[in-house]
């Protein structure tokens, strides 16, 4: 028999809505959040590295005929920086986060806190990731301002790009340091204050 008088009390209808099928599990949430932290850090690293390498590749191709020693050394330094960073932080890049669910459940809060700390450290290491691109743009600027390319025509054509990269780096650094502060605040919230 249909429950006809249903519409008479909206509050009762609202409160009598069927239970959600999926239960909420705090350990699962912590696990998912940890995975998200890992994933965003990893993609940020890959993006920074790719941007630096792309920039170097385009510039090397563009200025290949110039055979400028400073330019070549500069780009070599950028590539070395990228390679060392990649090696040092390879655990972030080449491997997925393989923590077992039972470990996560057991560790719970502690596990999440460790992930937050790693995320904070990554954000605080902003120079490691923004440095190569910044260095590359500075080298390019230095070269173009020097005697390698007489005249100001070429300098003028590249200057907007260099300025853009410097601004992008400054913005990125600021954003990361702000995020690091937010993550630190979250870590502080997770740690009960010492008593006594």
């Amino acid at each position: 028999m249909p429950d006809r008088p249903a519409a008479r009390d909206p509050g009762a209808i609202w409160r009598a809505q069927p239970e959600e099928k999926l239960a909420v599990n705090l350990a699962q949430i912590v696990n998912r959040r940890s995975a998200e932290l890992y994933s965003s850090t990893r993609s940020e690293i890959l993006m920074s590295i790719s941007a630096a390498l792309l920039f170097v590749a385009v510039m090397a191709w563009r200025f290949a005929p110039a055979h400028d020693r400073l330019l070549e050394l500069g780009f070599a330094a950028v590539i070395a920086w990228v390679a060392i960073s990649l090696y040092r932080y390879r655990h972030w890049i080449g491997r997925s986060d393989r923590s077992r669910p039972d470990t996560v459940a057991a560790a719970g809060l502690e596990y999440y806190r460790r992930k937050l700390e790693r995320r904070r450290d990554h954000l605080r290491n902003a120079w490691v990731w923004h440095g190569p691109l910044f260095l590359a743009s500075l080298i390019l600027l230095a070269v173009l301002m020097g005697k390698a390319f007489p005249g100001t025509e070429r300098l003028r054509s590249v200057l907007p790009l260099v300025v853009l990269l410097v601004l992008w780096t400054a913005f990125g650094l600021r954003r990361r340091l702000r995020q690091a502060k937010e993550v630190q605040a979250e870590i502080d919230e997770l740690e009960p204050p010492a008593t006594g």
Partner: protein
Amino acid sequence: MSRTRSTGAKRDELYETAVGEHGRALDRLAAGYEADPEKRHDLRQDIHFQLWRSFELFDGRCSLKTWTFRVAHNTAVSYVNRERRTNAGLVSLEEIERTAPAGEPCEPDIDRGRALQLLGELIRQLKPLDRQIVISHLEEMDAAAIAEITGLSAANVGMKIHRIKNILSRRFLEEKRYA
């Protein structure tokens, strides 16, 4: 003003208590913000996580219920803002009251499922603050309790509740005419 912070064990205990007492209401609250079951589950998870975290800072200056619903609503409002970068498309209670003519009630022989669906649609088209008030009202909270959750004055909440009752009676109580 110093804030008394609870220890980790206390936080877990508060969380368990809050979920035990208001878990079902929190699920309904999420339903007022998201219709899609999968997205709603994500929102529920987010609400629970933020609630659990928030108890680190719970200082007992308001009731556990007020704290729980404040955190839940704030989390859900952030979710709404994230989902729709702007609040374009959402309307206020005043607009609904103004634009919906009295002759738009739901069907007289409406069943409970359909009524719930219509109620959900009505709530989800509201701007976040009005949504908080409607949901709280449907959860049988009085004006003072809603004022504590929303930060509005009790008089303002009372006025809004009056509007809500008007709108709901137009949409849902018209059946009485046919009964």
